């Protein structure tokens, strides 16, 4: 990763214009060409430096359900349960964490009611309790990762 890659990552975390040729506009601000920016962006997504690029939708405002859920899984059963949990399309992210509650995942569903149904399915299929921790209030943050 060179200085231009870093500049692209830092720049694109802050937003992207809605106009005819947005890549050209951003490339101009970075002192490069639209073709070079697109090439770099493809490579950063391909090699996993960026996990995605595009609009980030606000699940609740689309009328869907969203929650964070946690489970306590014995180490010997962890991989089996992870495979079951990950197979649900409603599971958007899933992280292993160091704690008695060692599996933490985000559920995003078509309707708010569907959250409870998916949790019940996960409990039934895995045999373990799911702790539902929906956000009650979101506090504004402005962090970006400096590359």
């Amino acid at each position, binding site marked *: 990763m060179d200085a231009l890659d870093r500049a692209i990552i830092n720049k694109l975390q802050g937003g992207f214009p809605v106009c005819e040729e947005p890549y050209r506009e951003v490339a101009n601000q970075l002192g490069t060409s639209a073709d070079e920016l697109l090439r770099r962006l493809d490579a950063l997504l391909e090699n996993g430096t960026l996990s995605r*690029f595009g609009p980030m939708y606000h699940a609740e405002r689309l009328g869907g359900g969203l929650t964070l859920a946690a489970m306590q899984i014995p180490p010997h059963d962890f991989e089996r349960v992870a495979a079951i949990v990950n197979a649900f399309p409603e599971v958007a992210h899933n992280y292993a964490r160091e704690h008695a509650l060692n599996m933490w995942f985000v559920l995003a569903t078509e309707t708010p009611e569907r959250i409870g149904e998916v949790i019940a399915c996960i409990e039934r299929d895995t045999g373990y309790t799911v702790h539902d921790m929906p956000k009650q209030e979101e506090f*504004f943050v402005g962090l970006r990762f400096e590359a």
Partner: protein
Amino acid sequence: MTPRPATAMRPDSAEPLLDAIDRQIIVATQSGLPRVARPYHAIAAQIGVAAEEVMRRLQRMLETGIIRRIGAVPNHYALGYMANGMSVWDVPDERVHELGEKIGALDFVSHCYQRPRHLPAWPYNLFAMVHGRDRAEVEAKVRAIADLLGTADRGHTVLYSTRILKKTGLRIA
């Protein structure tokens, strides 16, 4: 998931917040924006409307908060932020709003939420994600949060992620 106009209404009118074209735009862009010179024209061609229409609707979704932002999501591990600590705090419920605002304003916190306790297993009601190059950096930042909370910090811990098991982002349909 399919966005549901029946539940997504403007607060000040009965007009649905999202119509069929909005939903087509969401479905066409949820895995990412086309990486071509004129991406909004590419989306427009795909769903059969004018590019100006796509841009106008995206702009409106940005203004109404349906789109948080258009941009890049870095893999923080790939950028060297190897320590990813979910700090969780037990603070008095009557002060959680005031304290959440203060913690969210810290420049090293990436998400900050109030969430329900699950007693007795889980006494924490305030979550703040803290990222650092290593655990020492995260620990220092967590101490800074503890200092800011003072006596309102009735207990806290940090959960480090050891592995990403899945990361696909939200899927609308």
